[in-house]
């Protein structure tokens, strides 16, 4: 399809993105979550999933949801370079979404992790999948990470024992800005991946087929009484 010349100038240069093979994880309650790449044509259901959380200040859901909404649009409309989106789906219903991008072949820039289904470590699994994608599939040597919520801080900075790069500011600064930059190096990843990252591949075709039809959640634990 022909692209308008000005539009072509506005689009960022793109690095090749290595496909992320889908995997499945049996959550503690027995439900199976498929973690897979989101497809561009699924942006509508992703935006519709994120949107209600923009009004939830608790645990910084509002900031994370608003920023992720922008990141999804930027990915869909070619305004963010080298972005990828992973989604966790249970019976096709979106349980969580992560966004990230490659700055260069060796540096990943973790954007956001949004957990909709709570209490089953969905966010922890999706964050681990994002790091797996960067280091194991995109070939990054390190990923820069920030946290906006205390929960994020506990999950990533402390549990992963990330390297604090904040003393190198402004030479090292995460694109989201405003908060200290931490890094997951390949060495750190190799030390923690066995205990943090899991998943069974390949996903059986029937389960993958269910996960291929994403559905917006009808319930949000963050929004009591939510009705779509």
């Amino acid at each position: 399809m022909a692209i308008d010349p000005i539009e072509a100038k506005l689009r960022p240069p793109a690095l090749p993105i290595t496909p992320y093979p889908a995997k499945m994880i049996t959550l503690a309650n027995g439900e199976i979550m498929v973690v897979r790449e989101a497809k561009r044509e699924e942006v509508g259901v992703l935006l519709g999933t994120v949107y209600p959380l923009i009004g939830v200040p608790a645990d910084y859901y509002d900031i994370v949801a608003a920023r992720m909404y922008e990141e999804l649009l930027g990915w869909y409309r070619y305004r963010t370079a080298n972005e990828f989106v992973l989604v966790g789906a249970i019976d096709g219903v979106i349980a969580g979404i992560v966004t990230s991008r490659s700055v260069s072949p060796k540096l990943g820039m973790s954007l956001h992790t949004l957990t909709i289904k709570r209490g089953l470590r969905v966010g922890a699994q999706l964050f681990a999948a994002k790091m797996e994608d960067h280091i194991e599939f995109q070939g990054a040597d390190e990923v820069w990470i920030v946290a906006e919520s205390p929960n994020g801080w506990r999950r990533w900075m402390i549990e992963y024992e990330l390297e604090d790069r904040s003393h190198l500011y402004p030479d090292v600064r995460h694109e989201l800005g405003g908060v200290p930059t931490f890094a997951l190096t390949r060495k750190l990843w190799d030390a923690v991946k066995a205990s943090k990252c899991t998943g069974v591949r390949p996903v059986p075709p029937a389960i993958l087929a269910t996960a291929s039809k994403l559905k917006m959640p009808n319930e949000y634990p963050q929004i009591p009484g939510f009705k779509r």
Partner: protein
Amino acid sequence: MSARIGIVGVGHTRFGNSSEYDLADVMAYAATDALIDAGILEKRREVDQVIVGNMASGLFCNQTSVASSLVSRMDMEPVPAELVENGPASGASAVKVGYMAIASGMADVALVVGGEIMRKVSGWRATDVVATMLHTEAEYAMGLTLPSFGGMFARLYMERYGCTERDLALIAVKDHANGALNKYAHVQTPCTIEAIADSATAHVVNNYVAEPLRIYSTCPVTDGAAALVLANMDSPKAKLFKQKPVRIAGVASATDTHCVHNRRDPLYLDAVRIAGEKAYAMAGVGPKDISFAELHDAFVILELAISEELGLFERGKAYLAVREGATAINGRLPINPSGGLKAKGHPVGATGVSQIVELARQLRGEVEPGRQVKDPKYGMAVNFGGFGNNVVATICAKD
């Protein structure tokens, strides 16, 4: 002990994350619930004594004198109020002190409230605060925490008796099944043995906290409060109450060495055994009379060890009873029908009161369908302070 002392009102908050609320307000919610249940909210100054169980609000919330705060929140001045602190057994100790106040004749009606807000601080800080009850030089200064003690205890138990990590997971599955039905439980999500023990992804989904204990072997960090109205059923005030009382048939406590390494055997929880024996003697019953039990499973291994010390199962055999389903809600001796500390949660100062609220609700026959013990006569609770160095056992009866 000639007075007949009964529970005539129970109150409970939904356990979970209440960190945005003030501790005294959370306790007031449970206390109000209990006074309404007893039918004396409007006559709350008929309460002769308020007793609060709390472990560490000074460290968790930078807030002290919570018994005084509670009375003021409740508009109950000038009712006397005192605080009882006995680590994670503060709640049951507060109930015991309430019992003693009535038995001594100093009070006819006591309001006992247990509460804790732990989630104003990080999980790591909460673990550190709880660890301050260990011996300062011999344990805490060496980096020991309660989960690390739980891990070592579990490892020794497993090596000595043949219990496996899968057996521990079976306890979690049972507790979560009960907690999923408990409207007050922190965690209301069931878990499956496939997911947390058998599947290829279980090692990460159910990751280690303090090997061999995993996330699903360990209680969550929880906020909440529970309350009881206790009364002398032979006093003139007995006619104030709308509830038929659940009798406190036995209550006793015992201590053990502060340092675990000074015990005759690290797996022997003598304070549990002695407190249990005293409670049985006071109630005039034995292990075979107990219909169900609420046991302090901050780590699921403790459910096994405590049940053995109480004589409910032979030493080293409790895990076999779990395998057989004997401790499930429809088993021959249901344990932790509330979900236990594992699923209901463990706001340290509240737990002991919460356990006895559960005894009363079960004996009244009013818990949620699916987790009601069939025709219970006696319920027993054990609240475990320190790493077993100050333990309270309570037996309640349906008369």
